[in-house]
């Protein structure tokens, strides 16, 4: 008997919300991806001359107040960091898509799980500037001071560091407030969690949220991810980990998943949220039912921080667990939305891991990375790719792996480089997320249950 969601409480997806460099409507985003459009563009938001990467999946010309239009929401936005705002907006879009009103579900039966980036960088930069000006103005006092006095001065400043600029700076640096703000706005008082596992955080948030519903702790969960590392401090530091492409001159072609010439990802930003719901509840209120969460598996590499083991053992474990919970055999997978960051290591080890789990069947199914078009959204990546997987199941078509022109003999699966592909028999999708630090997540998504069907065998 499979462990997972095969019991009475089937978990379905009833709402989609995305805020990305390719637009803020999940359906139009998917359309753009299928057409091979790119959201990768030169970073204009800050001076990139000191940063090895000059490109990003940048969200331009976006004002969160166009999505959050009421006063109480704007009061939240006023104090929110950019990452928190992206999460709140994506949640707003997903809940609207699901036709979910604040207070529409008994509060203790709806919860919020998010994967969140560290965020708070704008506040950190303002604080740095305030500190710099404070020190510059006070430096004459300490010019001739002894080490004891300067130590004392330092202690006083570091105790007040958050108050230099404004007292809510600290709140902007708390990733957990993404979940809190959504919870406040939707009166979602059920279970809550914020996951900070970098590149797998969003997928883990969705997977764990599905479990909450399956074990009858909630009927609805708002789950997703939000992140932006597109600021001078974080992007430059991240580049030092050798995971980011420096082929800036290639522009939209810089990120080349599974390609022989690949040299890393392009960092993106955004928010992506799904509304998860127990099937009966969704049917009763006439909610749109897009897809079903069939399984979820996670693991930790326990190997190195910035490299997976050559055999992809952690990824294998996550995928196998997910399939086990779904009660599915490897041969029942129709398509994989890969982690596919276009780093030398990931694409090779992920390919190995897929072959280990699926055997010969790995060669029969399309494996796509959408990161070459959206960018790598880090904590939001797994959530965005879950949305893309859901859309694939609804529309029975899949986007291509853009920028794959020179095959790598060690990456020899069908990565769909030529363009979108229609798949009338698309029933089950795997979505992979493998993080720096070694945490891994795999979501198994299936097409929406047929109305009136009693069990899984009828879908």
């Amino acid at each position, binding site marked *: 008997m499979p462990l997972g969601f095969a019991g009475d409480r089937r978990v379905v997806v009833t709402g989609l919300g995305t805020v990305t460099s390719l637009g803020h409507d999940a359906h139009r985003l998917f359309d753009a991806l299928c057409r091979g459009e790119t959201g990768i563009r030169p970073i204009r938001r800050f001076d990139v001359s000191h940063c090895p990467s000059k490109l990003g999946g940048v969200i331009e010309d976006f004002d969160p107040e166009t999505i959050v239009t009421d*006063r109480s929401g*704007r*009061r939240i936005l*006023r*104090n929110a960091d950019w990452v928190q705002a992206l999460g709140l907006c994506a949640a707003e879009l997903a809940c609207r898509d699901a036709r979910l009103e604040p207070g529409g579900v008994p509060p203790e039966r709806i919860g919020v799980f998010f994967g969140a980036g560290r965020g708070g960088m704008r506040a950190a930069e303002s604080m740095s500037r305030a500190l710099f000006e404070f020190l510059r103005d006070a430096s004459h006092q300490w010019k001739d001071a002894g080490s004891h006095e300067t130590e004392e001065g330092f202690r006083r400043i570091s105790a007040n560091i958050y*108050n230099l600029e*404004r*007292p*809510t700076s600290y*709140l902007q640096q708390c990733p957990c407030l993404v979940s809190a703000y959504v919870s406040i706005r939707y009166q979602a008082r059920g279970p809550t969690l914020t996951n900070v596992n970098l590149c797998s955080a969003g997928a883990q948030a969705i997977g764990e949220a599905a479990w909450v519903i399956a074990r009858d702790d909630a009927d609805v969960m708002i789950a997703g991810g939000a992140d932006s590392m597109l600021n001078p401090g974080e992007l430059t530091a991240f580049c030092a980990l050798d995971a980011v492409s420096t082929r800036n001159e290639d522009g939209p072609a810089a990120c080349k998943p599974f390609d022989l010439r690949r040299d890393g990802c392009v960092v993106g930003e955004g928010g992506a949220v799904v509304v998860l719901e127990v099937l009966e509840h969704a049917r009763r209120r006439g909610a749109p039912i897009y897809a079903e969460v069939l399984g979820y598996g996670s693991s930790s590499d326990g190997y190195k921080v910035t490299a997976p083991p050559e055999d992809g053992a952690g990824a294998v474990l996550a995928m196998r667990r997910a399939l086990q919970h779904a009660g599915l055999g490897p041969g029942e997978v129709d398509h994989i939305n890969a982690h596919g960051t276009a780093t030398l290591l990931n694409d090779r080890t992920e390919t190995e891991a897929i072959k280990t789990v699926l055997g010969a069947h790995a060669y029969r199914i399309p494996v796509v990375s959408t990161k070459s078009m959206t960018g790598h959204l880090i904590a939001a990546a797994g959530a965005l790719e879950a949305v893309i997987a859901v859309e694939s199941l609804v529309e029975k078509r899949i986007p291509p792996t853009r920028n794959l022109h020179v095959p790598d003999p060690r990456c020899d699966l069908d990565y769909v480089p030529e363009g979108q592909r229609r798949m009338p028999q698309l029933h089950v999708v795997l979505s992979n997320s493998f993080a720096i630090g070694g945490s891994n997540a795999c979501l198994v998504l299936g097409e929406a249950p047929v109305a009136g069907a009693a069990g899984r065998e009828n879908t």
Partner: protein
Amino acid sequence: MTSNAGGSVLARLQAILADLLVLKPADIRPESRLVDDLEADSITFIELAFTIEKEFGVRLPDVKADERTLSLPLPDGLNRLESMPGSTTFFEFLKHEAIRDVLGPETRPEELAHAERERLFRSHTVATIARAARAEVPEGLDPAAPITSLRLRDLLRFLTVGAMAGYIEHLLAEKKNTPA
């Protein structure tokens, strides 16, 4: 921030509150109560204190009103605040306004005998405080109830924009009269 440094204290305060509370300045009237009418919350008060200090160059003696003190019955809370060193809190300011309201504008509340102040506490009502703050009695409070039925923190519900402006003016005057 957004306020006009040359305008009146009230106008500058209105601009600050409009920004903090996401309201139009026209929605912020002198009689608007920060909590009951404008939906100020604890974050608002933290930001407001910070902004007032920066904008007007005054120090708000917030450390005097800690959790324990705020939970005390009103007369005890006020007595405790007065016994602490440091400049006037809003609560003390409001009390002085109430005394002046009752005994006349020329009264100097700090010169009243302790016994006289205690007698005033016990013989006046919630309505007296409301009148001093120029505020409508907050919902759930009985205007005829004695002042002693309130806790110190309840005074925050009487905090109007106008009373806040008066308090800031008081602090500005206090600062002028205090040697640096």
